[in-house]
Every structure is written in structure tokens, then in C-alpha cells.
């Protein structure tokens, strides 16, 4: 017979209600007679109730890892282990999921078996970092759990000042709006920096996120140091017969109010015969009209990506959006992917050398100025990088002629390449 459960009057109140309850799940593990994790989960519930009662957390970090790696395990030691001894160690393994978070049930069952044997039986699909979080095991079991997962083809994710686990959307696997091979972009980038992931030695974290279109389902602009977002250069596709069907089903007013007038650049017009006119030169690829008229409108054929850099949340200087670094590049041939990888390498190298300790890429760019950053990674300035040119006259322009010459030369080269 196991030790008795702690009284958990507050947690018990999270068992009612229609939404699935994580407390009910943890209790299931705490009452799992004979399982190695049972005592740990009994005391885990005790400590959690204690947190609810006192409104404080009781975990502290430490150093726990696996042989050969410097990061990827989140160590947790209890500060109230005298009251809850069986959960005194409750470490988490961050494991990188298959790109796009695809699973078959055989794989998931195998993951469960590993964690039933070596851990707490509690798994989060997924943490905010994009990892599968195998939550809760002892210091002794970290290595054996990792070894089994690693043999199955799974690797630890990032933690600390390192390249972190990335994310890519479902994209081309099941979305007609996809303009990129998201899983390939993610794997090309992250898997090229595994040394920087597993042996944290950067100034601070560095995240890649990949979205297949400007809907940016992976929240990459706001959350990634390097965001890769699919887009297209040619005209969007319009199936005029489907447009007419949509108009007759929904009404002209609906289409005008919800599609035409919502275009941010006034690039749409409904013709008298209920067909749609698109001013493609002024469409900014925002996706709105395509989102509304999924059957009538779709992205173009000349697909590629936009790269933005520097997104992050508050710490330390305030929130920063990623900003455009590469307005458009094709991503079809191996050479294209190599070019993207080269941009990432130059960026991380520059970041490693120039960022202050605990400074994210966006903060570094803010401190040194975008132009210095661009020169550092070897990217030319482009008007797509700004919302508007400078307003303030406090700038030295004595090399204007040289800079103007660079622009004209570049334009001439681009023109020559295009013909």
C-alpha cells in the first residue's frame, strides 16, 4: 500500500468543469499502485497544493544534464523537500518534436512507455518553447530516459544562452496557403546549429520560427530572433467563377464590407459583373482576402520567403517585433537553402561576437543600429526594411555619392541578371 495522498482542497476545485483537468491526470498517476512514479506524484500534488495555499512557487534550478551536452534539461529541486520528499527532484527533459508536430500513435505510445519507466508519466504537448516537455524525473533517471528517447531518433532541445528549439507550422502538409517547405527550412536551420544548441555559449537565446505564409501561425515575427515567412511575388490567383459564387451566396454588401474595404492597401475592387479586380502591385500579401475567400483566391506561383530578425518579448528594453532583413528570396534549389543557411550563420556569428551578455538579437540591433548590423552580416540596405525614411536631420551624409553609386550599381546588376 502506498503512502496516503495529501489533502488537496484547492486543487480539487480544478477537477470540476467541462475542460479536461490536468489535476485529475496527475491524481491518476498519484494513485497508480505500484508504479515507480507514484510516490513522486503524491508529493508533487502535495507541493502544488502548498503553492496554491501560500501563492508561491517552490522550485529552484541547479545543474543537471546528460553526458555530452551542456543544456536541454531543466533541473528542478524542491525547496520544501522536507515536507514532500518524494518529489525533491523533478527535472524536465525538453525534447524536439518532429517538425510540424506530426505523430502516429505507435510513436506516442512509445514515448509514453519511456516516460512511464523513467519519469513521472506526465508529458506536455508542447511547451511554449516548442518542445515536448517530459515533466518530472529524478537526477538518476535523466540519463536513462534521454538515452532511450535518443535511440528512438529524438534529441534534446535548447535551454539557456543557446540556439533554441524551433517551430514550423503545419504548412505544406495540409494548408493551401503555404508558400514554403516549412519543415525543410526548420530542419535546415536548426539542425545546422546543433552545437550551438547543445553547448550553450551564445550571449543569450536565439530562436528560429518558420511560418508558411503571412498569417504567421507560429508567431514568428513577435517571438523569433530569425523569422522565416513564406510569401509570393507574382499575382495572386483568382478563380472568377468561385468569386461570383461567393458573392451570390454571401451578398455584394458582405463582400464589400468584409473583403474589399478591409484590404489595407485598397488593392481590391468588386466589378459590376461581380468579378474581382486585384491591383497586385499594391497587394502587400497580408492574406486577409485569401483567408475569407478560401476557394476563390489563392497565393501565387512564384513563391519564396521573407526573413525578419529581432523579435522578442519585454526583457530587457521592451517588446520588439522582428523587422525585414531579406524582403524576398527564392527557396527552391540546394543553393537557395545554402544561401539561407549562410545568412543564419553570419547572423549567429555576428550575434556571438557583438551582443552583450543576456542581450537578444533585436536588442543588439537596437543598440548598434540596423545599418551596422546589415554591414556585419553582409546584407545590402533595401527600402522594404523600413516603414518610412528617417525624420531627423541628425546624421552625417558626407559619403552620399558613394552610397548612391552602390544603389545604382546594384540596380544595374539586378537588371542584367533578370534579362
Amino acid at each position: 500500500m502506498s503512502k496516503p495522498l495529501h489533502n488537496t482542497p484547492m486543487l480539487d476545485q480544478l477537477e470540476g468543469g467541462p475542460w479536461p483537468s490536468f489535476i485529475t491526470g496527475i491524481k491518476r498517476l498519484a494513485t497508480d499502485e505500484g508504479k515507480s512514479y507514484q510516490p513522486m506524484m503524491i508529493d508533487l500534488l502535495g507541493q502544488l497544493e502548498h503553492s496554491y495555499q501560500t501563492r508561491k512557487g517552490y522550485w529552484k534550478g541547479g545543474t543537471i544534464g546528460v553526458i555530452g551536452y551542456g543544456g536541454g534539461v531543466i533541473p528542478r529541486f524542491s525547496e520544501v523537500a522536507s515536507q514532500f520528499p518524494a518529489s525533491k527532484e523533478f527535472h524536465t527533459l525538453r525534447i524536439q518534436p518532429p517538425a510540424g508536430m506530426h505523430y502516429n500513435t505507435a510513436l506516442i505510445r512509445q514515448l509514453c512507455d519511456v516516460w512511464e519507466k523513467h519519469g513521472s508519466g506526465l508529458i506536455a504537448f508542447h511547451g511554449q518553447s516548442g518542445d515536448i516537455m517530459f515533466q518530472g524525473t529524478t537526477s538518476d533517471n535523466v540519463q536513462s530516459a534521454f538515452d532511450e528517447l535518443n535511440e528512438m531518433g529524438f534529441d534534446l532541445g535548447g535551454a539557456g544562452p543557446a540556439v533554441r528549439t524551433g517551430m514550423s507550422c503545419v504548412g505544406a502538409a495540409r494548408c493551401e496557403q503555404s508558400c514554403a517547405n516549412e519543415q525543410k527550412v526548420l530542419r535546415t536551420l536548426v539542425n545546422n546549429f546543433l552545437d550551438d544548441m547543445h553547448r550553450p555559449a551564445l550571449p543569450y537565446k536565439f530562436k528560429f520560427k518558420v511560418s508558411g505564409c503571412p498569417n504567421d501561425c507560429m508567431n514568428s515575427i513577435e517571438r523569433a530572433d530569425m523569422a522565416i515567412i513564406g510569401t509570393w511575388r507574382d499575382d495572386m490567383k483568382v478563380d472568377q467563377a468561385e468569386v461570383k459564387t461567393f458573392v451570390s451566396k454571401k451578398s455584394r454588401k458582405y463582400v464589400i464590407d468584409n473583403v474589399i474595404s478591409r484590404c489595407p492597401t485598397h488593392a481590391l475592387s468588386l466589378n459590376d459583373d461581380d468579378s474581382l479586380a486585384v491591383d497586385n502591385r499594391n497587394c502587400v500579401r497580408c492574406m486577409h482576402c485569401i483567408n475569407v475567400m478560401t476557394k476563390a483566391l489563392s497565393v501565387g506561383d512564384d513563391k519564396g520567403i521573407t526573413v525578419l530578425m529581432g523579435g522578442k518579448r519585454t526583457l530587457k528594453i521592451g517588446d520588439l517585433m522582428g523587422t525585414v532583413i531579406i524582403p524576398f528570396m527564392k527557396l527552391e534549389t540546394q543553393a537557395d537553402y545554402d544561401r539561407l543557411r549562410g545568412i543564419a550563420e553570419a547572423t549567429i556569428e555576428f550575434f556571438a561576437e557583438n551582443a552583450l551578455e543576456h542581450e537578444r538579437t533585436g536588442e543588439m540591433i537596437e543598440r548598434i543600429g540596423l545599418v551596422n548590423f546589415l554591414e556585419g552580416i553582409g546584407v545590402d540596405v533595401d527600402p522594404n526594411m523600413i516603414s518610412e525614411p528617417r525624420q531627423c536631420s541628425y546624421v552625417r551624409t558626407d559619403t552620399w555619392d558613394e552610397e548612391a553609386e552602390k544603389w545604382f550599381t546594384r540596380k544595374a546588376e539586378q537588371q542584367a541578371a533578370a534579362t
Partner: protein
Amino acid sequence: MPPRMPIESGVPDPFQYMHPIMVRNYGAWKHHERPRPGVLCHTSKNGEQIWTIRAGTQRQMDVYTIRKLCDIADQYAEGYVRFTIRSNIEFMVSQESKVAPLIDKLTQEGFPVGGTGPSVSMIAHTQGWLHCDIPGTDASGVVKALMDELYEEFIREDMPNRVHITTSCCQINCGGQGDIAINIQHTKPPKINHDLVANVCERPSVVARCPVAAIRPALVNGKPSLEVDEKKCICCGACYPPCPPMQINDPEHSKLAIWVGGNHSNARSKPSFQKLVAAGIPNNPPRWPEAAAIVKKILRVYKEDARDWERLSDWVARIGWPRFFELTELPFTKFHIDNWRGARRSLNASTHIRF
């Protein structure tokens, strides 16, 4: 025996775990429809179709719950699932006839089917007291309590546009941007345990961490420690992770704040960050009723007043912030006026005023 060295395999190849229809039609999808809430039907250029049934989960799941989902996937679907960024599980099937029985089974087993289109999807959240080392609250608990109340909004599609809610247990805001975000907001400077600072903290890097340079090295009771200029301190808690003896969490004074209008999509307007609308909300486990009431009020007003396809940020941009505060009956205070760098951008430099 030499120790086993890791195989540095990185991100696994997803094709080995992907539904065969998705593999066959990779990059060749044509359009999609939403036949009912919680269900997507995608049609490929090759004429194949796939139905996706989306259900909510509690995110951190015991192996019994996960295996139950696998049993359902094997018996009622085709053994392939994926997870969304908001911890919803998706079952993919090749035949429409499988959709209704799968929905019935999921509902019967307590997994709500929904979270598609203009619904309130599952709340993206951080970990909290269960596992984090710096949490001011238990995001998992806040989410469970809130999703119980927003259940109907999850299984229906009758909001103006999709609503993404996030919660975070500290001001680092790992939960991320959301149409509505419920985050910890500390209101008192850290309480320093001077006996421990010298041993536990790397003092120069803690000093460097403070956004307002409020921390300086000091000798306290003859020991090297740190002190905080409490007049300067903005109670952000940035010093706490690198220096646990600078306890920022306070059972009484760590409050919740609510932010609205974060939106990462480029659709219509450019992506936007969330803005503070309410603070000083009690951090009140186990069901956080005060925070839930404000969220529900904001959602109710948004649902009534916003037009189709307006995200929360689009709606406020149209009606203006004065009207937002009027409709939600939230107080407008001096704390809503930004004074951080770049704050002038947020002031109204025009005579554009709605009466």
C-alpha cells in the same frame, strides 16, 4: 565502458509520422472549408480530401490520457495526430463518414471539439507552480478555470474573428502575445535575503539585468550583497531569475494584469503588441474569478460590438480606446499612459477624437 555519447539528430523528419494523404499531397493543397466548428476539410489539387478534427486538451497530460487519445485515434480515426501551437490535438481522417463518430467519442470522453475559425481557442500558457522556478501564479490552473468558463466559445464559432488568449506566470511573458493576455504584474520591489546573495548570485550580471539601473552592489551586515533603489524599481522581476534571493513573488502584492490587442498575423493591419487594460487583479487560486470576470466581459463586448473578421486589435483601432474603456467599464488610469522609451508614439498627436 566509455559513456554513451548522444546522437545529435536534431529535429526529426516529420514524414515518417505524417498521415499518408498529407505525405502524398505535400505542397499540393488547393482550398479548405470548415464544415462545422472543430472540423476542417482540405482538398488537394489531386482531388484528394482530408478531414481534420480538432479537440482541446489539458496540455500537460498523464500517460493514461495520452493513451486514451491514441486509442481514439486508432479506433475512430486513422492513427495519425498532430498538435497545434495551442496544444489542441488534431485527428486526420480520409473519409467524411468517420467525422461524426469521432466527434461523438471525443465529446463523450471529455475532449471538447472546437478551436477552429472564429472561436476562442485553447489558451497558450506557461507552466507555473507545477514546474517553473520563478512563477508568480499557476498558469495551468488559470487556464483550466478560464477554459471551463469559455467552453461554449471553444466549441462554437461565433466570435467576430479568432481569439487567442495567453497566460504567463511572470513578466517575462513566455505565454506570448495574445488578443487577450493574463499576466503576472508585480507591485512591490524584491525582498532581498542578504545572507544568501554573495553565495548564490553573480552580482555584476544581476546589476546589469535591471532595466532601470535600480540595483547596486552594497555591503549589508558586513557581507557583500545588493541593494535596490525602491523609488526607481519598476517591480519587473528581471533580477529574480539570476538571483533567487531577490524574491519578487509576493502572495499578496503579485497581481494579475490583463492586456489586449496582441496579434501576430499580418492580415489587414501589421502585427501588433498587446496593450495594458487592467491591473491590480487579485492572484486568487484556485479559480481566479476576478480575472475570469474581466476576460469574459471583454469578450462579451467584443462579440457584441466588433464586425466580422475584426480581431480584437482591429476592433479597438476602429472604435478607439476611449470607447473600449467605456464599453468594458474598466477604469482608465495614469498607468495606461506609457512612459517607457518610444512612448511618444502612443500619444494622440492629432485632433482625431470620437465624441
